């Protein structure tokens, strides 16, 4: 079995020092850097002590995956290759994680959908793989534009699902994500989502931790299930074949296993709260009007609040950071004074509004919208207009303004 003694303070082959993650992420000096979201993904992975990264190109994640290839060429990652399809890539990631590696991959839209069968398998096999999903449209006609519909499918796979608003979220959450998902009582995969292009292809000032510090390596022997490397006895885990046989034991085994996965999602809550400083961020929670959003819709919401303020309307904001675990209690608390809850979303079905409706009392308060989809931007004006129309105030439409 691998050495279990701490490696903190020692150096990897690139001369980076394995650093206590709390020190690295909360105390170490930060350097402001002007980067695209894709470049930020690369910088986070440089510091993540990843063993294996597997890639398949799809817009808008291709650039991030290619940049991580450069990291491999520089010697920061144990292995890297392009698989034959997203289904294969996610399977290759599973194989590497079964073998005890810290694994990273990225995908988007149709890639996420093609790979779908793998995700409940990852969760069921307790593989703490991290996957970045740079969301884009999935339905016909073909679109490469941002659209968050794919997140709604990921939410029921048993994976942890977080939704980043900015490149800064990305940088911090990639590193913190491994810390949460590798906890022995969690040990689940993480889908770290963002709205493609809006985050991946725009430049922003991001505060980076020192490049000569990196996370301690993954210890696969902290896993709640055996690592498939023949370093521990190959116990016969089941005397009966698993689900194939119609007997009560196998039904019960499978049912309790599913429940255990969702219990592990719940157990991630306490770790996530500590690392992300809560599952939500909230402001002006005493306002009558609350905007609840995730991803870049939060930024639009924030701008809408500023515009409403100019017109004497006070509104508050909830930024939902994690979709799994779902911050039900936090959202109930933050919206308890609200008469109206608006949920702007970059997708046609309004999956976030449905979740919120199922969460808060008096769900008639929840207005699903505004929605944009197919890659359209969401000017804050349409959020303002939706709110004012609901309140019976006169609203100027964008069309009326000629824009």
């Amino acid at each position, binding site marked *: 079995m691998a050495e279990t003694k701490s490696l903190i303070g020692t150096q990897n082959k690139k001369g980076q020092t394995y650093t206590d993650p709390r020190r690295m992420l909360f105390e170490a000096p930060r350097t402001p850097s002007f980067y695209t979201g894709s470049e930020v993904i690369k910088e986070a992975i440089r510091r993540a002590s990843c063993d294996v990264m597997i890639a398949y190109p799809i817009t808008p994640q291709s650039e991030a995956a290619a940049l991580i290839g450069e990291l491999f060429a520089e010697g920061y990652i*144990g292995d890297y290759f392009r698989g034959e399809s997203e289904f294969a890539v996610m399977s290759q990631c599973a194989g590497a994680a*079964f073998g005890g590696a810290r694994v990273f991959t990225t995908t988007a839209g149709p890639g996420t959908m093609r790979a779908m069968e793998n995700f409940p398998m990852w969760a069921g096999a307790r593989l703490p793989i991290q996957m970045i999903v740079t969301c884009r449209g999935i339905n016909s006609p073909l679109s490469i534009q941002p659209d968050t519909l794919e997140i709604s499918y990921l939410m029921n796979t048993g994976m942890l699902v977080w939704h980043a608003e900015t490149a800064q979220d990305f940088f911090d959450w990639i590193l913190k994500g491994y810390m949460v998902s590798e906890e022995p009582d969690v040990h689940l995969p993480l889908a770290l989502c963002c709205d493609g292009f809006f985050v991946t292809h725009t430049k922003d000032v991001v505060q980076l931790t020192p490049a000569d510090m990196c996370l301690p390596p993954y210890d696969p022997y902290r896993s709640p299930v055996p690592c498939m490397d023949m370093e521990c006895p*190959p116990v016969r885990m089941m005397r009966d*074949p698993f689900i194939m046989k119609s007997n009560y034991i196998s039904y019960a085994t499978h049912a309790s296993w599913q429940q255990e996965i969702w219990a592990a999602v719940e157990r991630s809550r306490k770790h996530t709260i500590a690392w992300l400083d809560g599952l939500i961020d909230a402001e002006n929670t005493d306002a009558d009007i609350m905007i609840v959003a995730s991803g870049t819709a939060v930024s639009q919401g924030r701008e809408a609040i500023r515009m409403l303020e100019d017109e004497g309307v006070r509104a508050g904001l909830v930024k939902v950071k994690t979709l799994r675990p779902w911050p039900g209690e936090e959202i109930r608390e933050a919206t308890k004074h609200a008469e109206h809850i608006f949920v702007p979303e970059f997708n046609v079905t309004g999956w976030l509004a449905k979740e919120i409706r199922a969460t808060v009392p008096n769900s008639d308060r929840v207005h699903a919208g505004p929605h944009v989809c197919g890659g359209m931007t969401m000017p804050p004006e349409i959020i303002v207009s939706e709110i004012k129309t609901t309140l019976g105030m006169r609203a100027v439409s964008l069309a009326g303004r000629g824009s």
Partner: protein
Amino acid sequence: MSKERIKIAPEFFDIMPPEYQDLVQRATYGKEDRGWKDIGTAKELIEEHSLCAGCPESMAFRYILASLPNPEDTVMVGSTGCTSLVFPMVAVHNIHSLFGNQNAIASGLKRALTVRFPGKVKDVVVLAGDGATVDIGLDMTLQAWFRQEKFTTICFDNELYANTGGQESGLMRKGFVAKMAPIGKQFEKVRLPEIARESGCHYVVQCTVSKPSVVERVIRNAVFVARELGPTYIQLYTPCILEIGKNSMEGLQEMRDSEKPTERFAYKEFVSEPAKQFLAELAAKEKEKKAAAKQLASQEA
């Protein structure tokens, strides 16, 4: 893994399940010349199985597990199908993930083990049905070979989908009437051994499992060549007696009938030039070792 790892603390020995005691006392981990002749002396790393009585897949499983050169450091990857009924009873780490993705899983696994255990041999062996290997998983089978992944792929070719009740598969004979092939299969049996050779496999064998000594030889060769050079492929005829309407005693004869020189499972072997050289060196070393052992025995006598 060393055999030390499976030792039982003496205080607990009595309360351990009998199969675990058997594993510790008699398993052939670490025994260099283990092979099919050990079957019966130990459980050869397989517990009782739940395949149909007389299913040739069960023989094949036993021969393969008895022939692995390095079971204490071998991880197997399975797929959905009749084989997945057996894997829970197999005493090497094994992964069941999805239907058809076995060679992708094995690619990631082998690479992770290589990154994590530099300088140590960890063998990976894939074992899946013909539907998994040649139909749903074909792109992943081929791409692992194109990429020269260093593991062995074994296909249990029963010429149909057994687990779902006998549907058409790519390895089924042309004309065979099957569920979902109501007017008979319309295209030839896919020539996967040839495709394997063309795709970069260094050692390819097609045979039946009627002779354990043959299975032992090809499995050992395949694992050794994969470890050193690149992908290897073994296609074993393991007839589904249930779906072709044979009774449990007739599987062996079915294999003997179909391995005759003119039949579709006549022994077939492709070996790449580097693999030929490597296997010759291996055989020479083996010969030397045996001669030295013989000499030592005669000196001692």
